[in-house]
Structure formats: C-alpha cells, structure tokens
C-alpha cells in the first residue's frame, strides 16, 4: 500500500519536473512566474507537513513555516510583476 510519505515524494517529483517545463510552456513572465512560485509553495508546504512532520504539530509551527513560504514567494512574484509592468 502506498502511504502518505510515498505520495508526497511522487507529488514532489511531479511538481519538480513540471517546474522545469514551465518556462517553455508558459513563456509570458507574469503567469509563468506565478505558476513557478505556486508550484514552489505547494512543494514547500508538502515538505513542511509530511517530511518535517508539522501536520501533527501545533498550528503555530505549521503557520510559521507556511508564512515563511508565502512571504518569500509572494515578495518574489510582486517584485517580478513590478518589473514586468514598468
């Protein structure tokens, strides 16, 4: 039986391969960057919940790590959006 760790690993590999393909499949910077960073956030969250074992930890710790991921990717996307729009 495939368990959560294996499913997470397969999902992470799939998202990693999809990430590599994004620049060719979505050449426009704004949606391309949004997709890249969404994939990064999804991968980061799976690592935090299933590999770091924060799924069973208090919400405070899950929230802090998730907030770190969101802040970094949102800041990167907003900066790229500013560059694209200027």
């Amino acid at each position, binding site marked *: 039986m495939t368990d959560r760790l294996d499913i997470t690993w397969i999902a992470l590999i799939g998202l990693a391969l999809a990430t590599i393909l994004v620049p060719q499949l979505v050449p426009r910077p704004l949606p391309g960057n949004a997709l890249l960073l969404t994939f990064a956030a999804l991968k980061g969250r799976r*690592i935090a919940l299933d*590999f770091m074992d924060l799924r069973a930890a208090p919400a405070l710790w899950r929230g802090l790590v998730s907030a*770190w991921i969101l802040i970094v990717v949102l800041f*990167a996307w907003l900066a790229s959006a500013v560059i694209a729009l200027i």
Partner: protein
Amino acid sequence: MSTADCEQQETGWGILEDLPGDPMIWVLIFSELVAFGLFLGAFTVARAVHPAVFAAGQAVLDSNLAGLNTVVLVTSGWAAARATRAARTSEKRASRWWLLTAMALGGLFIAIKLAEYAEEIDRGIGLETSPFFTLYFLLTGFHLLHVCLGIVILAVVCRRAEASGVETGAAFWHMVDLVWIVMFPILYLMR
C-alpha cells in the same frame, strides 16, 4: 518545589517541545529560515533594480542541472523521512539504511552543484562578474554549506539511530530541502 521539578522547569522548552526532535534544532531551523528569507528578499530587490543584468546572468545558468538537483534533494528528503519513521518503530537497521541513502543523495547534490560551479568558472564567471553572480554564488554557496552540515548531522545521528536523534537530523535536512525548493525557481527560472 522538588529538585526534579526545578530541573524540569529550567530545561523546559515550552511549546517547542511539541515539535519532533530536539527543540534546539528548531531554534536553529527558524533562524536559518529567517536568514535565507532575507537573503532571497535581497536577491529579489536587486533583480528589480538591475533586471537586464539579472536576466543576462540567469541565461548562463544550467537550469537542467539545478532541476536534476531538485529531484535528488527531494528524494533525499523522502529517504530521511523514511529513516525517521523506521527509527520511531525501533527498526534501527532500516533507519540507518535510509539515512545512508539520504546522505549519499546529499553527496550527489554536492557533486552536481560543484560540476555546475566548475562549468561556470570555466566560462570565466566569478563572484565579481555582476551583482547577479555575487548573489548567486553567495546564496547557493551558503545553501551548499548547509547541505554539507546536514550530511554531518545525519552521519552523527546514524550511529545510534535513536528516534529523537534521527528526528533532529531529519528536521534540519528537510529545512535544507525546503530552502532549495523555494530558491531554485527564484534563481534559475523566474523572468
């Protein structure tokens, strides 16, 4: 209050005790996340200031090798998570095997990254080539040091393969994995 109560109060980690492994490793993990977050923020700001320089620098990087390294590190993280699970059920032999797999994949990550650096240095690229490469080498080099440190920590906990030790080592290893997952698209792929 008894002596035992006093000792427990002095060594208590409060809410950090609800996290897997030694609470001290989580203090380190959160400190490292803040440091890497600030570093990536600085990279993002510098790119906004010099978009053409950063685009030219990024075009030289080998994103396929970095993508391969993502697969290697994610698989290593999976092996470390399996080691933790085995250690929790006292399957020390299995735990050691998974830890060795995680360390070997960590070694492969280092080898691929060094090959990438060698290729870049062969092209005459260095720390002072442009602001992009200064930040690129500092960020990836800082991360690479953490991969090396992670392998050392995994090697130390591998000897006894006890649940608490393996949880501690794996938690640090997953932080290294998490940082790379976010760093990879920002450095190599975003336009």
